[in-house]
């Protein structure tokens, strides 16, 4: 059983985002901390849990991103994955999710996988497209926003629950090989273990350069980046903590929320 997990490195949400001089992309503020996308962390955890239950399972990690993405591939191996592929691509500028899906689909690890896990979306770009597009490239059945995975090997299928609005879940059976995009809340991702991290740091990854891979035409682009529209006045309270608290109480009391 081969499981491939697609992971992405993202900035911590508290990081400042500045629009860069090109006006078409952002530069993250100084000292920005990078980490694994939380959805992907849940996807790695889900894969490692399957590996623990089914002997002979191999978990392979793949990431498209700048050189620094190496760190999250090794972290995923530290969580219990076995190997990793790093498609090195520049982080400056928008890359069409269809291109990213194409690059991943060209890797042997994607073609040999019985099960592919992606996060439902990335926390930075929030497009939710790479998973479904990779499934399309590989002609795999796909279910998104998965909150429960039940592998039924004797029927060569995986039965999942996907989250829909209003507290409902859809129960879907997919023939293997299949691709699932994992929703947060499915599990609490473990911390990497020291012994796995030591192994991860010694492992050589399958590293490929995106600019050496075949180009695919992109049908969308970012025209420009803008600061978000301010939809409300946004009066900023000033003063000490106590003063701010008192101002807020006055505002709330004047609007009769406290009586």
């Amino acid at each position: 059983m081969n499981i491939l997990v697609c992971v992405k490195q993202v900035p911590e949400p508290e990081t400042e985002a500045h629009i860069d001089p090109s006006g078409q992309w952002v530069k993250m503020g100084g000292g920005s901390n990078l980490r694994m996308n939380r959805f992907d962390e849940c996807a790695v955890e889900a894969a490692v849990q399957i590996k623990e239950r089914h002997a002979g399972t191999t978990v392979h990690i793949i990431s498209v991103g700048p050189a620094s993405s190496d760190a999250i591939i090794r972290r995923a191996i530290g969580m219990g994955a076995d190997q990793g592929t790093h498609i090195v691509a520049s982080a400056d500028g928008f890359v069409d999710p269809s291109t990213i899906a194409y690059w991943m689909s060209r890797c042997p690890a994607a073609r040999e996988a019985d099960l592919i896990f992606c996060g439902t979306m990335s926390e930075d770009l929030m497009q939710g497209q790479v998973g479904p597009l990779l499934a399309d490239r590989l002609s795999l059945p796909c279910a998104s926003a998965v909150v429960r995975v039940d592998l039924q090997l004797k029927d060569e299928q995986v039965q999942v629950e996907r989250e829909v609005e209003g507290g409902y879940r859809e129960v879907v059976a997919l023939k293997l090989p299949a691709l699932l995009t994992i929703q947060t809340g499915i599990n609490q991702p473990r911390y990497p273990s020291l012994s796995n991290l030591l192994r991860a740091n010694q492992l050589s990854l399958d590293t490929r350069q995106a600019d050496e891979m075949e180009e695919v035409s992109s049908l969308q682009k970012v025209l420009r980046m803008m600061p978000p529209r301010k939809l409300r006045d946004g009066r900023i309270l000033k003063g000490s903590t106590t003063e701010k608290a008192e101002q807020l109480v006055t505002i709330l009391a004047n609007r009769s929320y406290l009586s």
Partner: protein
Amino acid sequence: MITTINKETILVVAEHFQGDVRPATYELVQAAETIQQIRPGPIQILILGQDVEALANLLAETTGKDVLGISAPQLSHYNGQVFTEALVDLLSGAPPAYVCVAHSSRGSDFAPGLAARLKGTCITAVNAIFACEEGICFSRDLFGGKVTAEMVSSASTTVLTIAPGSYPPSSGSHLKRRGRGGVQHKKISVKEKKSKTLSIKLFQTSDVDLSDALVIVSAGRGIGDAQNLERIYALAALIPQSVVCGSRPVIDLGWMPYDRQVGVTGATVSPALYLACGISGAAQHISGMKGSGFIVAINSDPTAAIFNQSDICIVEDLDVFIPALIDAITTRR
């Protein structure tokens, strides 16, 4: 009237659930009208399901648009693959210029793959559509709402998922004045090859009605620790008719039950007062609460996106500010 979908068509894929048209569908019609004003083309609504005749008639009545109803026994439940195959069969001959899909669990599930199959492109979570020098711009939020990107498509078919709340469905009545649209029904059969939806189940029922709450005190990941929730409850106890809710990360961590989740995948609320404590303001949360009367946000990150949606902004550490606020309320009494 005979319905034809061609390369000029602006297609709306209706969203329905358990026999009702979802409000998102009317938002999609408005988004399609916005596109139409910039780039003229006929708007066509498509509704797929096990037996959608009645819903197709209803949509033609309420929107005044032409509706094509596609009924197939395999569509008794939503299934991404079945849905996509049915759409591809129907559209691949002359793919429409635009396909408007709800940015919902189901819409997000099939939209990217449908775009790929139609040799087009997909832009998700679009919250505004407007004319620009390169034709039509689609704006969407990035980096937790800290930046807005204006995207353009050069594809002959562009599939859009429209973020909920972007085109409020208030204008149902003015749509109606244009008279009834044409309705066509088709019965088809789709093969289930690799994926089958077995059932749909209610995962969690709720005993709180968030839609009735006058005040919502909402906690985000910024509260730091589950123990700090106690302070949020203590604060809420001082505010009459208030309910404590949370954003998705807090529910994922198991700190609160699912029925308290505000946002795209949880509840949509519009209380008189929304007190956002440690909430970053990602689009998924905002669309669940932006209809609130008065919004107060407390966050230690001065660049948090929630401040763009707030009436009152307080940059403070919650560990310090919530106790100060509790003191200030208590003192006033």
